[in-house]
């Protein structure tokens, strides 16, 4: 199995940002993204997902280091000041490098 090194960015944040983030990551060069519904807790308190203003999402984006870096910086500057956001980056390997 020959893999090619890419970066994986995971963003956990308020459901209200889903549409904005999906647009942003595409604009900043990602070829795709994946979203799931989550719940959890952090410095902004518990987000139990039990009604609409309380929904959280987890977005996953795979891409080149440069693309992932600029997405992360953008989120840090744009959303982190006013929204509940957790974000981390890790290494991953993909089989079809052109795809990401």
């Amino acid at each position, binding site marked *: 199995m020959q893999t090619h090194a890419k970066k994986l960015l995971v963003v956990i944040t*308020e459901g*209200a940002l889903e549409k*904005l983030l999906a647009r942003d990551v595409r604009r900043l060069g990602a070829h795709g993204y994946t979203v799931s519904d989550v719940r959890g807790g952090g410095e902004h*308190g518990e987000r*139990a*997902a*039990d*009604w*609409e*203003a309380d*929904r959280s999402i987890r977005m996953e984006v795979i891409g080149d280091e440069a693309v992932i870096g600029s997405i992360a910086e953008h989120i840090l500057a744009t959303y982190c000041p*006013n*929204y509940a956001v957790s974000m981390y980056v890790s290494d991953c390997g993909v089989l079809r490098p052109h795809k990401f």
Partner: protein
Amino acid sequence: MDVVVLFFLLGLGARLAGSDLRLPEALYEALSIFLLLAIGMKGGVELAGQPLATVGPQAIAVIALGVLLPLVAFPILRSVGRLNRFDAGALAAHYGSVSVVTFAVAITFLTSRGVDYEAYFPVFVVLMEAPAIVVGIVLARRGAPGKPVAWGALAHEVLLGKSIVLLLGGLAIGWIAGPAGVVPIKALFMDLFKGVLALFLLEMGLVAGSRVGELRRYGVFLVAFGIGMPVLSAAIGIAFATAMSLSPGGTMLLATLAASASYIAAPAALRIALPEANPGLSIAASLGITFPFNITLGIPLYSHMAGWAATLGGR
């Protein structure tokens, strides 16, 4: 006390007692879609017979009421509450906009007492959703540095949001289909209405119960505002209703709309348009205090207030 209110108290009590009872989110959404459509449709069926000459001026008055209420709330929040402009603008927007479920409880209150009202009232609910949100944002942003409001995106969010699309869609369907046309779907949308409202209130009780804890963090002003503001708004609403020559039932309904605070359309719109505002504050106030107050004590009170106004006015 109407049976639907007991469901609210059950949810509230269960959560305060520490129960983990949860309604699935899909059920919550399904119930709210149902209520919005059913309320709209009921109004639309009635709208058919109305002369535009009556409804038109009333509609303008109702929009004016939606603009006025946040203008009243904002200075109170700034000076007495000492809130920053963002939080004050957001709260003003929530309290100027309306809660459809509070409206539904008020309708249940009237029908169970056999009191008539202008049956096209759902039109007013639609009209009062948006204006206060716009005013609240302008108040918060006025003269402030920082990024300009994306009014286009905001209009999209509010006007094409769930509340307005379903209320307006229901109105249009009711209006086009007419009383005879809706007969085949009455068994779902009309006969089950109160039962569905009861279930929805159970969920609202659970959610409200989760918010009560947060109130401690925000202090006594928020509690006072969450009770005082609706009563003040109701009084203003009654003044408008009197000027609009609404029936006693309609007067009470307009008072309730004025007194109610939004927790669907406003939070969604403000989270995007006014991210600096703390959403916990608005929601603790509107769901943790005002909603419970309105459906238990507020609605009977506004009904009395409407009665006094009628007596004063010599009607």
